[in-house]
């Protein structure tokens, strides 16, 4: 009865109720996305603290009633704030943390291509001319082996 009251704010479950191995698996998945509020950075799935165990049980119950991942994560976000979500939501200023690495990749790739072009010599201009000098060829051999 108390649970129904608490979940009133959430509205109706939008998915189908889970059970068995699927329930276990999904509980673990969602618990891995929630941050244990008392531990230093551990997920609810990994933490042995009392709060984390309660949260994991709550996730399990919500899943068995058919609540979806979004609804469950939203519920915890309501009580604990964004702090509890280990995967930053793609919303507002948080989009930056997802976009910046991609920008670095694209920018870096551009730099690499430009650098390669700058360093490249035109073909056949600097290939080593063959030599009859045994000393030089011995030197080349030794250098190639490095």
């Amino acid at each position, binding site marked *: 009865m108390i649970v129904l009251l608490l979940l009133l704010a959430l509205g109706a479950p939008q998915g189908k109720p889970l059970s068995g191995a699927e329930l276990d698996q999904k509980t673990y998945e969602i618990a891995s996305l929630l941050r244990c509020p008392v531990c230093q950075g551990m997920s609810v799935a990994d933490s*042995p603290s009392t709060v984390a165990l309660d949260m994991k049980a709550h996730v399990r119950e919500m899943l068995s009633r058919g609540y979806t991942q979004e609804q469950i994560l939203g519920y915890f976000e309501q009580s604990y704030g964004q702090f509890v979500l280990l995967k930053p939501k793609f919303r507002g200023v948080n989009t*930056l943390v997802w976009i910046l690495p991609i920008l670095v990749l694209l920018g870096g790739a551009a730099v690499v291509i430009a650098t390669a072009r700058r360093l490249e010599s035109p073909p056949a201009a600097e290939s080593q001319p063959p030599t009859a000098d045994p000393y030089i060829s011995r030197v080349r051999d030794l250098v190639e082996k490095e």
Partner: protein
Amino acid sequence: MTATLGRFLILASVFVSAAGSMVAFAAGRKRSLDGLKMARRFAYGFAALMVLATIVMEFALLTHDFSVGYVAQVGSREVPTWVTIVSLWSSLEGSILFWGLVMGFYIAGATWLTRGQHEEYMPFAIGTWLACATFFSFLIAGPANPFLSIPNPQPDGPGPNPLLQNHLLMIIHPPFLYLGYVGMTIPFGFACAALLRGRLGHSFLRPLRSALLLPWIFLTIAIMLGGWWAYEVLGWGGYWAWDPVENASLLPWLTATAALHSAIVMERRGVLKGWTVTLVQASFLLTILGTFMTRSGVFNSVHSFTQSSIGPTILVFFSAALLFTVVLLALRVDSLESEGKIDSAVSREGMFLVNNLFFVLLTFTVLIGTCFPLIVEAVKGKQMSVGRPYFDSMVVPIGTALLFLIGVGPALPWGRATKQQALRSLSLPFVSGVVVATIGYAAGARNPWTLLTLLFGGYAGWVTLVEMWRGGTKTLRRGRRRFGSYVVHAGAVIVLVSIAVSSTMRTSKEVRLTRGEAANIGPYTVTFLVAEERTEPHRQSTIARFAVTSNGKAVTTLEPRMNQYAMMREPIGTPDVHSTLTRDLYLSIMNIDPNSQTVGLMMIITPMVSWIWIAVLMMGVGGLIALIPVRTPSLVLREVKDPLGEDAIPV
């Protein structure tokens, strides 16, 4: 008296390193050989003072002299002697002293190994080293002073943090980490020397590279030890959580690895000098940033020391060093470039560029992810988290791409690859990749990234083995750098594959057992025998004993425990692990009631995880092989004291 002696030694080291630094820089400006000789003496002097100060501290610890501040903090008559010895690095003040000791060894070693050589660079290098030494001596003398005098000493002390006492790995992880971190100061000095001098000659490349490789080896192993310790001690069954302090140890490793690779292109072709130097500077700066992250208390982490005045001080040094580096690079980096070229981007050289791109991308991503919660809090006042799911989604694709590169890079020739060569480099090893991926699929791997990792791993592994085989013992004797690097690559391939397999193919089961009951997981049957309580001076433990059998045959007995430490609010579990080459069985207690003899148990089977520790050790060995200098018989390649010849790049 001991405290006063210690303080005196530290203050002396502040003066000696500051004076030595100034003498060295002046000697560099004036190109004075006498000045260099004097600077080297100051360098040895700093090292000697650090050794003496450490001896004084260990003496105080071992004689339980509680009139010395640090001993009063971590000393205890009740702990075993080896704990007393290693408590030198168990807490903040002692660990900074330890940092100074390692720095002393490195500076003295590097000064001695370069005696009579590179006289144009060494004054600047020594000047830079001693400037860093001045800062750390200042830290030990002031904000992180372990030699405070306690006027009315207690008869006994609390002992070091109990969490740090219960495992061998916790003893060796800090020294390895410091040997890695502090060691980055030496190549930093060499890089600054090249920039200050305005050139980076070919003969100086080898000392720069060796100076980078040695701390890299230590850091590689240190990171692994940290992960292994987290796995064996923390109880959640994993080895890497992307915790800020873990990331702090990884960041300099990433840039140092990139630098080691671009240094090869630098040596072969004379290009990328400025870039390699930048990476070396970055590796040093990231170690300072890393120590700030660990000690400032600003980051939410399992490992954090509590906040103290040392945080701001380190940040000021970091900012100053960063400013100095940026300005120095802006002014001098262009003078380093020589007229080298590469033939084509489709070549081994090109692959090195791509390698650097990925490593730098990894560095940025880990840095952004770690600092992002701080940014949001500073800008918007809200708290948010960037945790494991974020890092895993970002790092896995990049890591997989790097694995592919380990295969492609060595398969392509130097210079220019023809189309046939490129295709040939991909085809046969690719078959081996398909074979490995198929075996993985048959063994149950379904995660697409894991299958891709197996495919690339088989491919890269084949290429690496073939290259090692081709060289044979001749390469081991004469081309040790190349052979060593292939050993490192082989290790890296195994590490990446093992990480993929151990994270995606683990199975876990949570059960509730009463005495005598058993549960099955994988091939094992785990029977709960008994729960008993044990009281130790610093903690109250409840131990659960389990018998592990497989197919009816006894395998082992495991005893995970739940510890309630006097100083901590929540109990902390210690798991017990049965490791084999194929898989680990990991038992961790969630909750336990000795009165009713029931236990909530987490059982985890993690395949291939032991291979991670073994393969990283392999990487360390490969690095060592590459480090041992090769005696070349050729006249051209031997060190010649010819001031003009040092810029000559071999044909």
